[in-house]
């Protein structure tokens, strides 16, 4: 026993493992290794307040250095792991400065890298992705001088950046290959509501349009669409998803399928190693034979807290209801549950008052909801899911009835779910 737990990756999930170990009374060394030079920071504001310049960098820090010191979290920042080994009783990491670190437990919180656009011209100056604070600083500087901003990808990050850029008076175009925004996560009426909001702000939304190339000499000047159309652009933001960072897991011989394969509590295929956050895939809640990546703060925090318990041989307890939020200017979206795998949905409201809720059902039972501008609906669904309850879909369409009065026990046998 070395009396040391190493955490690789100092993002929200990695930090939470470290703090979770202390919260559970672990007294050994806790070493948090991060490739970036900054103290562990929050990512959600990078596409919103930080990009807009209203949130200073200090506000991104998740914990004060003094508190991390009190908690005896040893920070090794600006360093990468170049080699790792693990056996039955522990293992060792070697860092890029040649130092080694022996551990008896290891947490991988290596996160995900922003995907690059797979087209010619993607490496031109003025084509940026957004994942790290360094990316956000580059994007903020680029935005200051830009007039025509093209956001490739109509997912959450792309739409948040679009809203921020539009609020700064830029001409903004969102290009999405699918036939609607948020196609992977939301039902069509929700997509339409989000699109209408962005269009009302003056953003151009193009769906069903692919990007063939980025044009420009020396710097990006335009986006060539698949149909040959050229959009002028002096700043292009790639919001086309992220790929889990799995090299270290692969080197350690862990099971990797797109992401590092874990259970909901972060257990990997090796008993000494847990993995948490955006680098992982875990059993799909409605179809345990499938694996699902859940990129959210909620997953990072809950999976990491559970994984800290696993590392200490303690019961990690049950997970809470998965949830997510996205603020796009004044448009506030809140999602509860996992809608993937639903077989029907019902729409509550027409969006005219800025509020729209879509409830998702699988085998007649509530599994998730997407909510725009309606915290009461969001809270009602979160509460129903937490208690294993459902909401009558027929009654839910009446917006005059508060959703929380419709939460009821599930009558069908659970085997149908």
């Amino acid at each position: 026993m070395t009396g040391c737990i190493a955490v690789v990756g100092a993002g929200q999930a990695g930090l939470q493992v470290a703090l979770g170990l202390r919260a559970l009374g672990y007294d050994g060394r806790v070493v948090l290794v991060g490739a970036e030079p900054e103290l562990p920071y929050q990512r959600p504001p990078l596409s919103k307040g930080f990009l807009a310049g209203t949130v200073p960098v200090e506000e991104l820090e998740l914990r004060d250095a003094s508190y991390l010191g009190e908690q005896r979290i040893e920070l090794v920042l600006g360093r990468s792991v170049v080699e790792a080994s693990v056996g039955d009783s522990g293992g060792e990491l070697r860092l890029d400065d040649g130092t080694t670190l022996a551990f008896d437990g290891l947490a991988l919180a290596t996160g995900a890298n922003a995907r690059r656009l797979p087209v010619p011209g993607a490496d031109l100056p003025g084509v940026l992705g957004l994942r790290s604070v360094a990316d956000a600083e580059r994007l903020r500087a680029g935005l200051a001088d830009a007039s025509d901003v093209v956001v490739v990808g109509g997912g959450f990050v792309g739409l948040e950046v679009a809203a921020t850029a539009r609020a700064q008076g830029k001409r903004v175009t969102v290009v999405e290959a699918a036939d609607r925004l948020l196609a992977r996560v939301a039902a069509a009426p929700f997509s339409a509501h989000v699109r209408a909001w962005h269009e009302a702000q003056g953003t151009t939304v193009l769906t069903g349009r692919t990007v063939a190339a980025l044009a420009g000499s020396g710097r990006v000047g335009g986006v060539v669409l698949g149909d040959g159309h050229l959009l002028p652009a002096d700043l292009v933001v790639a919001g086309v998803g992220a790929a889990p960072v799995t090299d270290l897991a692969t080197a350690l011989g862990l099971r990797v399928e797109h992401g590092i394969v874990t259970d909901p509590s972060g257990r990997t295929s090796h008993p000494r190693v847990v993995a948490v956050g955006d680098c992982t895939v875990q059993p799909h809640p409605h179809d345990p034979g499938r694996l699902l990546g859940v990129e959210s703060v909620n997953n990072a925090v809950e999976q990491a807290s559970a994984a800290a318990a696993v590392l200490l041989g303690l019961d990690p307890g049950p997970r809470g209801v998965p949830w997510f939020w996205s603020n796009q200017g004044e448009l506030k979206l809140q999602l509860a549950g996992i809608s993937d795998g639903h077989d029907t949905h019902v729409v509550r409201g027409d969006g005219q008052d800025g509020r729209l809720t879509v409830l998702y059902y699988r085998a007649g039972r509530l599994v998730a909801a997407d909510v725009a501008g309606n915290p009461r609906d969001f809270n009602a669904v979160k509460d129903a899911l937490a208690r294993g309850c459902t909401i009558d879909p027929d009654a839910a369409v009446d917006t005059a009835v508060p959703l929380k009065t419709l939460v009821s026990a599930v009558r069908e046998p659970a085997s149908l779910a």
Partner: protein
Amino acid sequence: MPTIEFTCPDGSCRTVEARPGASVMETAVKLGVPGIVGECGGGLSCATCHVFVDVDQIDLTGRATDFEEEMLEDAVTPPTELSRLSCQVTMTDALDGLRVTIAKEQQ
């Protein structure tokens, strides 16, 4: 720097210095004041940073906005007229000596 006095769920008191411009939630979370979670980092989406502002100071902080009030309605500890989501209270020198009581149970 302005100070905030927190009464924590276990009854203990803790006084901390806040950076002007930082929210009460942010100040508490960064310094590990027990009882405030703030999972959404100030996105006004989780209602886990519920506090009760001292009755003599509620006019200084102002009361909850509409969206905030709707989030508070379903907070684990029932809200009162003095309830705020502390991510929505920005510290200023004028709020020096702010006293807040952290709601007993945050999800």
